[in-house]
């Protein structure tokens, strides 16, 4: 499966599990992105999360 399709499947699944706030799926997102699919390192994920927070 190509990466775009994988992204759609992974995030579609998370969207279905997302009740309430987006923070509830952050651990699952980290698990999928870092541990399962190795799209980025844990450090990169933390940096990305920090940048999202910085917009607040």
């Amino acid at each position, binding site marked *: 499966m190509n990466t775009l399709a994988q992204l759609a499947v992974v995030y579609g699944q998370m*969207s279905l599990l997302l009740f309430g706030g987006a923070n509830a799926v952050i651990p699952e997102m980290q698990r999928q992105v870092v541990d399962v699919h190795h799209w980025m390192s844990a450090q990169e994920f933390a940096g990305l999360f920090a940048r999202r927070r910085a917009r607040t």
Partner: protein
Amino acid sequence: MPDPPRTVIPRGMSEARPDPTVFDLFAGFFVVGVCGFGGVLPWAQRMIVEQRKWLTPAEFTEMLGLCQFLPGGNIMNVTIALGSRFRGISGAVACLLGLMAAPVAIVIGLGAVYDQYANLPAVRRMFVALSSAAAALLLATAWKIASPLRGRPLAVAVAACTFLVIAVLRLPLVAAMPMLAVGSTLVLWRFER
């Protein structure tokens, strides 16, 4: 033969039923997307209810209630529900695109800039600091949410169990969520009054 009774239109309502075009819907949510850094909902409420008067406050609350109950991002659900109410599928698409257009462009732009400078030591140190702060903010939020559980040992046990399953065992959320939802409901219902 008497005339059929006329329905009385309340003053100030219904005389001009809101009838936004697809472009109006896009434009309204585009502005919300531009303004709504870190929390779009208050801006969306202001635009929909106060400025454009597409919904009454009661209608908005009702729609938001439905959207919070459904899975997915709340504000995404609101855009789709509101768009399809006025203009069907094309309205829903217009609202969603309007809301997303500016933030997506800004985030992709910032990402491109970041990639240029990511390897500078100073930039990297800055992101270590930012990451720590972001993690601490999340912890602080969790503490605030959990503090009403004090004095309810079973609820604390459920929270601890959830933490163990997600953070330590790292089970997939698809498996963990139904288990935890059903399990915790049963436990609290059975043993706590």
